[in-house]
Protein backbone atom coordinates (compact mmCIF):
# COMPACT_ATOMS: atom_id res chain seq x y z
CA UNK A 1 0.00 0.00 0.00
CA UNK A 2 1.57 3.19 -1.20
CA UNK A 3 0.89 5.17 1.98
CA UNK A 4 2.71 2.61 4.14
CA UNK A 5 6.44 2.76 3.43
CA UNK A 6 7.66 -0.07 5.72
CA UNK A 7 9.43 -2.98 4.00
CA UNK A 8 9.72 -6.39 5.59
CA UNK A 9 13.31 -5.56 6.37
CA UNK A 10 12.37 -2.25 8.01
CA UNK A 11 9.84 -3.99 10.22
CA UNK A 12 12.25 -6.71 11.28
CA UNK A 13 14.98 -4.20 12.12
CA UNK A 14 12.56 -2.06 14.11
CA UNK A 15 11.07 -4.98 16.01
CA UNK A 16 14.58 -5.97 16.98
CA UNK A 17 15.01 -2.58 18.60
CA UNK A 18 11.64 -2.58 20.37
CA UNK A 19 12.14 -6.16 21.49
CA UNK A 20 8.94 -7.62 20.08
CA UNK A 21 8.62 -10.82 18.10
CA UNK A 22 5.97 -9.56 15.73
CA UNK A 23 3.61 -6.64 15.19
CA UNK A 24 0.85 -8.26 17.24
CA UNK A 25 3.06 -8.32 20.30
CA UNK A 26 3.22 -4.53 20.25
CA UNK A 27 -0.28 -4.62 21.71
CA UNK A 28 0.62 -6.80 24.70
CA UNK A 29 -0.55 -4.16 27.19
CA UNK A 30 -4.07 -4.52 25.89
CA UNK A 31 -5.89 -7.24 27.85
CA UNK A 32 -7.06 -10.07 25.59
CA UNK A 33 -10.60 -9.48 26.77
CA UNK A 34 -10.43 -5.96 25.33
CA UNK A 35 -9.13 -6.95 21.91
CA UNK A 36 -11.71 -7.28 19.18
CA UNK A 37 -12.35 -10.80 17.92
CA UNK A 38 -13.67 -9.78 14.53
CA UNK A 39 -11.71 -8.40 11.61
CA UNK A 40 -12.96 -5.10 10.23
CA UNK A 41 -15.80 -5.84 7.85
CA UNK A 42 -15.04 -3.24 5.20
CA UNK A 43 -14.88 -3.46 1.43
CA UNK A 44 -11.57 -4.67 0.04
CA UNK A 45 -9.08 -1.91 -0.65
CA UNK A 46 -9.53 -0.19 -4.01
CA UNK A 47 -6.74 0.85 -6.32
CA UNK A 48 -6.61 4.54 -7.20
CA UNK A 49 -8.11 3.69 -10.59
CA UNK A 50 -11.06 1.71 -9.20
CA UNK A 51 -11.57 4.41 -6.60
CA UNK A 52 -11.91 6.98 -9.40
CA UNK A 53 -14.52 4.85 -11.12
CA UNK A 54 -16.53 4.26 -7.98
CA UNK A 55 -16.43 7.89 -6.87
CA UNK A 56 -17.34 9.20 -10.30
CA UNK A 57 -20.34 6.92 -10.28
CA UNK A 58 -21.43 8.23 -6.88
CA UNK A 59 -20.84 11.84 -7.87
CA UNK A 60 -22.90 11.41 -11.01
CA UNK A 61 -25.88 10.43 -8.88
CA UNK A 62 -26.04 14.02 -7.66
CA UNK A 63 -27.88 16.27 -10.04
CA UNK A 64 -25.15 18.83 -9.86
CA UNK A 65 -23.27 17.51 -12.78
CA UNK A 66 -22.51 19.21 -16.02
CA UNK A 67 -23.84 22.69 -16.04
CA UNK A 68 -26.96 23.34 -14.11
CA UNK A 69 -28.62 26.58 -13.21
CA UNK A 70 -28.97 27.12 -9.49
CA UNK A 71 -31.71 29.48 -8.43
CA UNK A 72 -31.47 28.32 -4.83
CA UNK A 73 -29.79 30.14 -1.94
CA UNK A 74 -31.06 29.77 1.61
CA UNK A 75 -27.59 29.75 3.10
CA UNK A 76 -25.63 28.09 0.27
CA UNK A 77 -24.79 30.21 -2.74
CA UNK A 78 -23.60 29.55 -6.28
CA UNK A 79 -20.87 32.01 -7.21
CA UNK A 80 -18.05 32.09 -9.74
CA UNK A 81 -14.80 30.92 -8.23
CA UNK A 82 -11.69 32.30 -9.99
CA UNK A 83 -9.19 29.69 -11.16
CA UNK A 84 -6.45 31.04 -8.91
CA UNK A 85 -8.46 30.25 -5.78
CA UNK A 86 -8.42 26.44 -5.94
CA UNK A 87 -4.97 26.63 -7.52
CA UNK A 88 -3.40 28.55 -4.65
CA UNK A 89 -5.34 26.87 -1.88
CA UNK A 90 -4.26 23.43 -3.04
CA UNK A 91 -0.62 24.30 -2.44
CA UNK A 92 0.77 21.69 -0.03
CA UNK A 93 2.11 24.41 2.24
CA UNK A 94 -1.40 25.67 2.91
CA UNK A 95 -3.34 22.42 2.62
CA UNK A 96 -1.14 20.07 4.64
CA UNK A 97 0.12 22.51 7.25
CA UNK A 98 -0.83 22.16 10.89
CA UNK A 99 -2.30 24.82 13.16
CA UNK A 100 0.32 27.57 13.46
CA UNK A 101 1.37 26.86 17.05
CA UNK A 102 5.03 27.04 16.02
CA UNK A 103 4.91 30.48 14.43
CA UNK A 104 8.47 30.52 13.05
CA UNK A 105 7.53 27.91 10.45
CA UNK A 106 3.93 29.00 9.95
CA UNK A 107 4.25 32.60 8.82
CA UNK A 108 2.42 31.81 5.58
CA UNK A 109 -0.71 30.66 7.38
CA UNK A 110 -0.38 33.36 10.03
CA UNK A 111 0.02 36.33 7.69
CA UNK A 112 -2.75 34.91 5.51
CA UNK A 113 -5.17 34.69 8.43
CA UNK A 114 -4.11 38.13 9.70
CA UNK A 115 -4.96 39.52 6.28
CA UNK A 116 -8.24 37.58 6.36
CA UNK A 117 -9.11 39.09 9.77
CA UNK A 118 -8.31 42.54 8.44
CA UNK A 119 -10.37 42.22 5.28
CA UNK A 120 -13.35 40.84 7.20
CA UNK A 121 -13.27 43.87 9.51
CA UNK A 122 -13.22 46.04 6.39
CA UNK A 123 -16.13 44.13 4.85
CA UNK A 124 -18.24 44.31 8.01
CA UNK A 125 -16.95 47.65 9.36
CA UNK A 126 -16.12 46.13 12.72
CA UNK A 127 -13.10 46.52 15.02
CA UNK A 128 -12.10 42.90 15.37
CA UNK A 129 -12.67 39.60 13.55
CA UNK A 130 -11.68 36.13 14.72
CA UNK A 131 -9.74 33.62 12.64
CA UNK A 132 -13.08 31.97 11.77
CA UNK A 133 -15.53 29.33 12.99
CA UNK A 134 -17.27 26.28 11.58
CA UNK A 135 -20.20 28.09 9.94
CA UNK A 136 -22.51 31.06 10.31
CA UNK A 137 -24.94 29.17 12.53
CA UNK A 138 -22.42 28.08 15.15
CA UNK A 139 -20.80 31.55 15.07
CA UNK A 140 -24.23 33.02 15.83
CA UNK A 141 -24.76 30.59 18.71
CA UNK A 142 -21.40 31.64 20.14
CA UNK A 143 -22.47 35.31 19.92
CA UNK A 144 -25.67 34.53 21.78
CA UNK A 145 -23.62 32.92 24.54
CA UNK A 146 -21.36 35.98 24.74
CA UNK A 147 -24.32 38.29 25.22
CA UNK A 148 -25.99 35.99 27.75
CA UNK A 149 -22.82 35.30 29.74
CA UNK A 150 -21.93 38.97 29.79
CA UNK A 151 -25.25 40.19 31.12
CA UNK A 152 -25.38 40.22 34.89
CA UNK A 153 -29.16 40.37 35.10
CA UNK A 154 -30.89 39.32 31.90
CA UNK A 155 -31.06 35.71 30.80
CA UNK A 156 -33.05 35.99 27.58
CA UNK A 157 -31.96 36.48 24.02
CA UNK A 158 -34.36 37.99 21.48
CA UNK A 159 -34.04 36.19 18.17
CA UNK A 160 -35.68 37.28 14.92
CA UNK A 161 -37.89 34.58 13.43
CA UNK A 162 -36.46 35.58 10.06
CA UNK A 163 -33.00 34.36 10.92
CA UNK A 164 -32.16 31.24 8.89
CA UNK A 165 -34.21 28.41 10.46
CA UNK A 166 -31.16 26.17 10.80
CA UNK A 167 -29.24 28.93 12.60
CA UNK A 168 -32.06 29.30 15.08
CA UNK A 169 -32.14 25.55 15.58
CA UNK A 170 -28.40 25.49 16.30
CA UNK A 171 -28.78 28.26 18.85
CA UNK A 172 -31.58 26.34 20.53
CA UNK A 173 -29.41 23.23 20.72
CA UNK A 174 -26.51 25.17 22.22
CA UNK A 175 -28.67 26.96 24.79
CA UNK A 176 -30.65 23.92 25.81
CA UNK A 177 -28.56 22.82 28.82
CA UNK A 178 -28.47 26.33 30.24
CA UNK A 179 -31.00 28.43 32.09
CA UNK A 180 -31.04 30.84 29.17
CA UNK A 181 -34.14 31.44 27.09
CA UNK A 182 -34.65 32.25 23.43
CA UNK A 183 -37.53 34.60 22.68
CA UNK A 184 -38.61 34.82 19.06
CA UNK A 185 -39.41 38.17 17.50
CA UNK A 186 -42.24 37.70 15.01
CA UNK A 187 -42.19 38.91 11.41
CA UNK A 188 -44.45 41.66 10.15
CA UNK A 189 -46.49 41.60 6.94
CA UNK A 190 -43.56 43.10 5.01
CA UNK A 191 -41.37 40.11 5.66
CA UNK A 192 -39.28 42.04 8.17
CA UNK A 193 -38.62 41.55 11.88
CA UNK A 194 -41.20 43.35 14.02
CA UNK A 195 -39.30 46.10 15.86
CA UNK A 196 -42.32 47.01 17.93
CA UNK A 197 -42.56 43.48 19.27
CA UNK A 198 -38.87 43.60 20.20
CA UNK A 199 -39.22 46.96 21.92
CA UNK A 200 -41.96 45.54 24.13
CA UNK A 201 -39.69 42.80 25.49
CA UNK A 202 -38.07 42.77 28.93
CA UNK A 203 -35.05 41.19 30.51
CA UNK A 204 -33.09 40.91 27.28
CA UNK A 205 -29.33 40.31 27.20
CA UNK A 206 -29.03 40.56 23.44
CA UNK A 207 -31.01 40.80 20.20
CA UNK A 208 -30.11 38.92 17.04
CA UNK A 209 -31.32 40.03 13.62
CA UNK A 210 -30.23 38.70 10.21
CA UNK A 211 -29.87 41.12 7.31
CA UNK A 212 -30.49 40.38 4.49
CA UNK A 213 -32.89 38.04 6.29
CA UNK A 214 -33.92 34.51 5.32
CA UNK A 215 -36.40 35.91 2.81
CA UNK A 216 -33.68 38.09 1.27
CA UNK A 217 -35.24 41.27 2.69
CA UNK A 218 -33.03 44.04 4.02
CA UNK A 219 -33.73 44.78 7.68
CA UNK A 220 -33.61 48.14 9.41
CA UNK A 221 -30.74 47.43 11.77
CA UNK A 222 -30.73 51.06 12.90
CA UNK A 223 -34.04 50.68 14.71
CA UNK A 224 -32.78 47.53 16.44
CA UNK A 225 -29.69 49.42 17.52
CA UNK A 226 -31.94 52.07 19.08
CA UNK A 227 -34.00 49.40 20.80
CA UNK A 228 -30.89 47.63 22.07
CA UNK A 229 -29.58 50.91 23.48
CA UNK A 230 -32.85 51.39 25.35
CA UNK A 231 -32.58 47.96 26.88
CA UNK A 232 -28.82 48.24 27.41
CA UNK A 233 -28.37 44.92 25.61
CA UNK A 234 -26.06 43.81 22.82
CA UNK A 235 -27.02 43.95 19.13
CA UNK A 236 -25.99 40.87 17.17
CA UNK A 237 -26.26 41.21 13.39
CA UNK A 238 -26.08 38.04 11.32
CA UNK A 239 -26.06 37.13 7.61
CA UNK A 240 -25.85 34.15 5.31
CA UNK A 241 -24.70 35.92 2.13
CA UNK A 242 -21.36 37.65 2.73
CA UNK A 243 -21.36 39.30 -0.68
CA UNK A 244 -24.28 41.48 0.34
CA UNK A 245 -21.79 43.61 2.24
CA UNK A 246 -20.09 44.44 -1.00
CA UNK A 247 -22.82 46.95 -1.70
CA UNK A 248 -25.08 47.26 1.34
CA UNK A 249 -24.40 49.26 4.48
CA UNK A 250 -22.54 46.88 6.76
CA UNK A 251 -23.52 45.91 10.32
CA UNK A 252 -20.66 47.91 11.84
CA UNK A 253 -22.16 51.10 10.41
CA UNK A 254 -25.29 50.40 12.41
CA UNK A 255 -23.28 49.98 15.55
CA UNK A 256 -23.63 46.23 15.91
CA UNK A 257 -21.77 44.89 18.94
CA UNK A 258 -21.32 41.44 17.44
CA UNK A 259 -21.61 40.10 13.92
CA UNK A 260 -21.97 36.44 12.94
CA UNK A 261 -22.25 35.20 9.39
CA UNK A 262 -21.58 32.65 6.71
CA UNK A 263 -18.60 33.27 4.44
CA UNK A 264 -19.08 30.43 1.92
CA UNK A 265 -19.81 32.96 -0.82
CA UNK A 266 -16.23 34.19 -0.64
CA UNK A 267 -14.67 31.60 -2.93
CA UNK A 268 -15.87 28.28 -1.51
CA UNK A 269 -17.82 25.63 -3.39
CA UNK A 270 -21.26 24.66 -2.07
CA UNK A 271 -20.06 21.12 -1.42
CA UNK A 272 -23.47 19.87 -0.26
CA UNK A 273 -23.47 22.37 2.59
CA UNK A 274 -19.99 22.12 4.08
CA UNK A 275 -17.31 22.97 4.95
CA UNK A 276 -18.27 26.63 4.87
CA UNK A 277 -16.85 29.48 6.87
CA UNK A 278 -18.12 30.95 10.11
CA UNK A 279 -17.37 34.66 10.44
CA UNK A 280 -17.43 36.37 13.82
CA UNK A 281 -16.64 40.00 14.51
CA UNK A 282 -16.99 42.30 17.50
CA UNK A 283 -16.20 45.68 18.97
CA UNK A 284 -12.85 46.38 20.61
CA UNK A 285 -14.56 46.33 23.98
CA UNK A 286 -15.61 42.72 23.47
CA UNK A 287 -12.19 41.55 22.30
CA UNK A 288 -11.45 39.31 25.25
CA UNK A 289 -14.94 37.83 25.22
CA UNK A 290 -14.70 36.54 21.66
CA UNK A 291 -14.16 32.80 21.22
CA UNK A 292 -11.78 31.13 18.80
CA UNK A 293 -8.36 31.93 17.49
CA UNK A 294 -6.75 35.30 16.85
CA UNK A 295 -3.65 36.10 14.83
CA UNK A 296 -1.73 39.14 16.00
CA UNK A 297 1.18 41.07 14.54
CA UNK A 298 4.44 41.33 16.43
CA UNK A 299 8.21 41.30 15.86
CA UNK A 300 10.91 38.64 16.16
CA UNK A 301 14.21 38.88 18.02
CA UNK A 302 15.76 40.70 15.03
CA UNK A 303 12.99 43.26 14.95
CA UNK A 304 11.49 41.69 11.83
CA UNK A 305 7.74 41.76 11.40
CA UNK A 306 5.98 38.48 12.18
CA UNK A 307 2.65 37.02 13.24
CA UNK A 308 1.53 34.74 16.09
CA UNK A 309 -1.60 33.23 17.52
CA UNK A 310 -2.41 35.49 20.43
CA UNK A 311 -4.78 36.04 23.34
CA UNK A 312 -4.73 32.28 23.68
CA UNK A 313 -5.60 32.49 27.35
CA UNK A 314 -9.27 32.72 26.33
CA UNK A 315 -9.08 29.31 24.73
CA UNK A 316 -9.83 25.79 25.94
CA UNK A 317 -6.26 24.51 25.98
CA UNK A 318 -5.43 27.01 28.70
CA UNK A 319 -8.74 27.82 30.41
CA UNK A 320 -10.07 24.27 30.12
CA UNK A 321 -13.37 24.14 32.06
CA UNK A 322 -13.38 27.93 32.45
CA UNK A 323 -13.18 28.60 28.72
CA UNK A 324 -16.20 30.41 27.39
CA UNK A 325 -16.20 28.17 24.34
CA UNK A 326 -14.78 24.72 23.63
CA UNK A 327 -13.74 25.58 20.08
CA UNK A 328 -10.33 24.29 19.05
CA UNK A 329 -10.00 24.38 15.26
CA UNK A 330 -11.08 27.16 12.99
CA UNK A 331 -11.89 26.56 9.31
CA UNK A 332 -8.37 27.75 8.48
CA UNK A 333 -8.08 26.68 4.86
CA UNK A 334 -11.46 28.23 4.07
CA UNK A 335 -10.42 31.46 5.77
CA UNK A 336 -7.36 31.51 3.47
CA UNK A 337 -9.72 30.83 0.56
CA UNK A 338 -11.79 33.86 1.52
CA UNK A 339 -8.64 35.95 1.82
CA UNK A 340 -7.56 34.97 -1.70
CA UNK A 341 -11.04 35.67 -3.05
CA UNK A 342 -11.33 39.07 -1.37
CA UNK A 343 -7.83 40.02 -2.51
CA UNK A 344 -8.70 39.06 -6.09
CA UNK A 345 -12.05 40.82 -6.21
CA UNK A 346 -10.77 43.79 -4.27
CA UNK A 347 -12.65 46.94 -3.31
CA UNK A 348 -14.26 47.61 -6.66
CA UNK A 349 -14.60 44.04 -7.80
CA UNK A 350 -16.63 42.98 -4.81
CA UNK A 351 -18.86 46.01 -5.23
CA UNK A 352 -19.48 45.19 -8.89
CA UNK A 353 -20.18 41.51 -8.25
CA UNK A 354 -22.60 42.40 -5.45
CA UNK A 355 -24.35 44.90 -7.72
CA UNK A 356 -24.57 42.29 -10.48
CA UNK A 357 -26.20 39.86 -8.02
CA UNK A 358 -28.79 42.48 -7.29
CA UNK A 359 -29.41 43.24 -10.98
CA UNK A 360 -29.94 39.55 -11.70
CA UNK A 361 -32.30 38.99 -8.79
CA UNK A 362 -34.43 42.02 -9.65
CA UNK A 363 -34.61 40.84 -13.26
CA UNK A 364 -35.62 37.34 -12.21
CA UNK A 365 -38.31 38.57 -9.86
CA UNK A 366 -39.83 40.77 -12.55
CA UNK A 367 -39.79 37.90 -15.05
CA UNK A 368 -41.49 35.55 -12.60
CA UNK A 369 -44.13 38.07 -11.63
CA UNK A 370 -44.87 38.67 -15.30
CA UNK A 371 -45.12 34.92 -15.78
CA UNK A 372 -47.84 34.59 -13.16
CA UNK A 373 -46.01 34.34 -9.82
CA UNK A 374 -47.06 36.66 -7.03
CA UNK A 375 -44.67 39.04 -5.36
CA UNK A 376 -45.01 38.46 -1.62
CA UNK A 377 -42.95 41.30 -0.17
CA UNK A 378 -42.40 44.71 -1.68
CA UNK A 379 -39.36 45.99 0.18
CA UNK A 380 -35.70 45.98 -0.94
CA UNK A 381 -33.93 42.62 -1.11
CA UNK A 382 -30.49 41.23 -1.98
CA UNK A 383 -30.08 38.31 -4.42
CA UNK A 384 -32.99 36.36 -2.82
CA UNK A 385 -36.72 36.98 -2.73
CA UNK A 386 -40.01 35.20 -2.01
CA UNK A 387 -42.75 34.61 -4.59
CA UNK A 388 -45.94 32.61 -4.49
CA UNK A 389 -46.15 30.10 -7.31
CA UNK A 390 -49.27 29.20 -9.24
CA UNK A 391 -50.73 25.83 -8.19
CA UNK A 392 -49.12 22.77 -9.75
CA UNK A 393 -45.69 24.35 -9.71
CA UNK A 394 -44.21 21.61 -7.52
CA UNK A 395 -44.42 19.12 -10.40
CA UNK A 396 -43.15 21.70 -12.87
CA UNK A 397 -40.23 22.36 -10.57
CA UNK A 398 -39.18 18.72 -10.61
CA UNK A 399 -39.49 18.66 -14.37
CA UNK A 400 -37.26 21.73 -14.61
CA UNK A 401 -34.49 19.83 -12.83
CA UNK A 402 -34.87 16.67 -14.87
CA UNK A 403 -35.29 18.29 -18.29
CA UNK A 404 -33.53 21.64 -18.03
CA UNK A 405 -31.04 21.11 -15.20
CA UNK A 406 -32.50 24.11 -13.47
CA UNK A 407 -33.33 24.36 -9.77
CA UNK A 408 -36.18 26.79 -9.40
CA UNK A 409 -36.14 28.12 -5.86
CA UNK A 410 -36.41 26.53 -2.40
CA UNK A 411 -39.92 25.60 -1.21
CA UNK A 412 -40.64 27.41 2.05
CA UNK A 413 -43.49 25.32 3.42
CA UNK A 414 -41.28 23.06 5.52
CA UNK A 415 -39.82 26.12 7.27
CA UNK A 416 -42.97 28.23 7.59
CA UNK A 417 -46.03 25.94 7.42
CA UNK A 418 -48.51 28.58 6.28
CA UNK A 419 -46.31 29.54 3.35
CA UNK A 420 -47.72 26.94 0.99
CA UNK A 421 -46.70 27.39 -2.67
CA UNK A 422 -44.15 30.00 -1.54
CA UNK A 423 -40.62 29.73 -2.94
CA UNK A 424 -37.36 31.45 -2.08
CA UNK A 425 -35.58 32.26 -5.34
CA UNK A 426 -31.96 33.29 -5.62
CA UNK A 427 -30.11 34.75 -8.59
CA UNK A 428 -26.38 35.36 -8.42
CA UNK A 429 -23.87 36.55 -11.00
CA UNK A 430 -23.71 32.96 -12.31
CA UNK A 431 -27.25 32.95 -13.71
CA UNK A 432 -27.61 33.96 -17.35
CA UNK A 433 -30.44 36.05 -18.70
CA UNK A 434 -31.06 33.19 -21.11
CA UNK A 435 -31.73 30.76 -18.25
CA UNK A 436 -34.05 33.19 -16.50
CA UNK A 437 -35.95 33.81 -19.75
CA UNK A 438 -36.25 30.05 -20.28
CA UNK A 439 -37.63 29.59 -16.78
CA UNK A 440 -40.20 32.33 -17.31
CA UNK A 441 -41.27 30.76 -20.57
CA UNK A 442 -41.58 27.31 -19.01
CA UNK A 443 -43.74 28.44 -16.11
CA UNK A 444 -45.98 30.78 -18.09
Amino acid at each position, binding site marked *: MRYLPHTRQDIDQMLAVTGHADLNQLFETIPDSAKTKTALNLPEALSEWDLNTEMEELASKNAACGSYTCLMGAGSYDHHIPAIVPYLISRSEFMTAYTPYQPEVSQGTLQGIYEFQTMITALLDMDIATASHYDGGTALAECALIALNKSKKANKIAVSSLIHPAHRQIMKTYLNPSEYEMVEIPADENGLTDVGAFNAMDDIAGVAVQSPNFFGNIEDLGSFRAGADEKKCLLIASFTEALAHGVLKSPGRFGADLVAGEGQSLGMTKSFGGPGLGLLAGTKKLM*RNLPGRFVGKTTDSNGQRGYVLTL*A*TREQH*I*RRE*KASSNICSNNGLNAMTAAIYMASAGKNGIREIAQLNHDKAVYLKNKLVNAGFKSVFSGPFFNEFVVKAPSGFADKRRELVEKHNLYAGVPLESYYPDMTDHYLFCATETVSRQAMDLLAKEVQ
Partner: protein
Amino acid sequence: MKSIEELNFPSDVKYTDDHEWAKVEGDLVSVGISDYAQDQLGEIVFVEMPEIGDTFGQGDEFGSVESVKAVSEIFLPIGGEIVEVNSELEDAPELVNTNCYDKGWLVKIKPDDLSEMDSLKDQAAYLEMLKG
Protein backbone atom coordinates in the same frame (compact mmCIF):
# COMPACT_ATOMS: atom_id res chain seq x y z
CA MET B 1 12.54 31.40 37.35
CA LYS B 2 14.34 32.63 40.40
CA SER B 3 15.20 30.82 43.61
CA ILE B 4 13.52 31.85 46.88
CA GLU B 5 16.67 33.67 48.01
CA GLU B 6 16.61 35.90 44.95
CA LEU B 7 13.01 37.00 45.54
CA ASN B 8 11.62 39.81 47.65
CA PHE B 9 9.19 39.43 50.56
CA PRO B 10 8.76 42.65 52.56
CA SER B 11 7.85 42.41 56.22
CA ASP B 12 5.18 45.10 56.20
CA VAL B 13 2.59 43.01 54.34
CA LYS B 14 0.72 39.82 55.13
CA TYR B 15 0.60 36.84 52.72
CA THR B 16 -1.93 34.18 51.71
CA ASP B 17 -1.39 30.55 50.81
CA ASP B 18 -2.21 31.45 47.21
CA HIS B 19 0.57 34.05 47.07
CA GLU B 20 -1.41 37.25 47.38
CA TRP B 21 -0.36 40.01 49.79
CA ALA B 22 -2.51 42.40 51.82
CA LYS B 23 -1.46 45.68 53.48
CA VAL B 24 -3.49 47.92 55.75
CA GLU B 25 -3.47 51.55 54.54
CA GLY B 26 -5.60 53.64 56.84
CA ASP B 27 -9.24 52.61 56.36
CA LEU B 28 -8.46 50.55 53.32
CA VAL B 29 -6.52 47.39 52.58
CA SER B 30 -4.33 47.19 49.50
CA VAL B 31 -3.97 43.84 47.69
CA GLY B 32 -1.51 42.39 45.19
CA ILE B 33 0.44 39.24 44.30
CA SER B 34 3.81 38.30 45.78
CA ASP B 35 7.19 38.33 44.06
CA TYR B 36 7.05 34.53 43.98
CA ALA B 37 3.71 34.59 42.15
CA GLN B 38 4.81 37.07 39.49
CA ASP B 39 8.07 35.19 38.97
CA GLN B 40 6.22 31.90 38.49
CA LEU B 41 3.77 33.42 36.04
CA GLY B 42 6.40 34.99 33.87
CA GLU B 43 5.73 38.08 31.81
CA ILE B 44 2.25 39.27 32.63
CA VAL B 45 0.14 40.38 29.70
CA PHE B 46 -3.26 41.08 31.20
CA VAL B 47 -4.97 41.49 34.55
CA GLU B 48 -8.69 40.82 34.78
CA MET B 49 -10.13 43.13 37.42
CA PRO B 50 -13.42 43.27 39.29
CA GLU B 51 -15.56 46.37 39.19
CA ILE B 52 -15.68 49.07 41.81
CA GLY B 53 -18.49 48.24 44.17
CA ASP B 54 -18.15 44.46 43.82
CA THR B 55 -18.03 42.62 47.13
CA PHE B 56 -16.22 39.39 47.99
CA GLY B 57 -15.69 37.19 50.99
CA GLN B 58 -12.28 36.10 52.30
CA GLY B 59 -10.74 33.67 49.82
CA ASP B 60 -13.17 34.46 46.98
CA GLU B 61 -11.87 34.64 43.43
CA PHE B 62 -11.91 38.30 42.40
CA GLY B 63 -9.99 38.29 39.14
CA SER B 64 -7.15 36.69 37.24
CA VAL B 65 -3.63 37.39 36.09
CA GLU B 66 -2.52 36.19 32.65
CA SER B 67 0.80 35.46 31.10
CA VAL B 68 1.11 34.34 27.46
CA LYS B 69 0.52 30.67 28.22
CA ALA B 70 -1.19 30.60 31.61
CA VAL B 71 -3.97 32.11 33.67
CA SER B 72 -3.92 32.33 37.45
CA GLU B 73 -6.98 33.11 39.47
CA ILE B 74 -6.48 35.58 42.31
CA PHE B 75 -8.25 35.30 45.63
CA LEU B 76 -9.08 38.11 48.04
CA PRO B 77 -6.98 37.79 51.24
CA ILE B 78 -9.78 39.26 53.39
CA GLY B 79 -13.43 40.02 52.62
CA GLY B 80 -14.53 43.48 51.54
CA GLU B 81 -15.81 45.87 48.89
CA ILE B 82 -13.69 46.97 45.96
CA VAL B 83 -13.16 50.74 46.17
CA GLU B 84 -10.21 51.16 43.82
CA VAL B 85 -8.67 49.18 40.97
CA ASN B 86 -5.22 49.91 39.59
CA SER B 87 -6.14 51.33 36.17
CA GLU B 88 -2.47 51.70 35.22
CA LEU B 89 -2.30 47.94 34.76
CA GLU B 90 -4.53 48.20 31.68
CA ASP B 91 -1.74 49.72 29.63
CA ALA B 92 1.17 48.46 31.67
CA PRO B 93 0.44 45.02 33.12
CA GLU B 94 4.21 44.50 33.40
CA LEU B 95 4.15 46.68 36.54
CA VAL B 96 3.02 43.55 38.37
CA ASN B 97 6.30 41.91 37.35
CA THR B 98 8.58 44.85 38.13
CA ASN B 99 6.87 46.39 41.18
CA CYS B 100 4.47 43.85 42.61
CA TYR B 101 4.32 45.47 46.07
CA ASP B 102 3.96 49.13 45.13
CA LYS B 103 3.12 50.36 41.62
CA GLY B 104 1.87 46.87 40.72
CA TRP B 105 -0.90 46.76 43.34
CA LEU B 106 -4.15 45.26 42.09
CA VAL B 107 -7.10 46.51 44.17
CA LYS B 108 -7.88 48.45 47.31
CA ILE B 109 -10.78 47.28 49.45
CA LYS B 110 -12.89 48.51 52.32
CA PRO B 111 -12.55 45.51 54.64
CA ASP B 112 -15.57 43.80 56.24
CA ASP B 113 -13.61 42.55 59.20
CA LEU B 114 -10.03 43.64 59.76
CA SER B 115 -9.46 40.77 62.17
CA GLU B 116 -9.39 38.46 59.14
CA MET B 117 -5.84 39.76 58.61
CA ASP B 118 -4.79 37.68 61.62
CA SER B 119 -5.39 34.47 59.69
CA LEU B 120 -2.84 35.49 57.05
CA LYS B 121 0.85 34.63 57.12
CA ASP B 122 3.55 37.04 58.11
CA GLN B 123 6.89 37.23 56.28
CA ALA B 124 8.51 34.43 58.28
CA ALA B 125 5.57 32.04 57.95
CA TYR B 126 5.25 32.71 54.21
CA LEU B 127 8.96 32.11 53.65
CA GLU B 128 8.67 28.86 55.55
CA MET B 129 5.78 27.79 53.35
CA LEU B 130 7.76 28.57 50.21
CA LYS B 131 10.85 26.72 51.36
CA GLY B 132 8.91 23.74 52.68
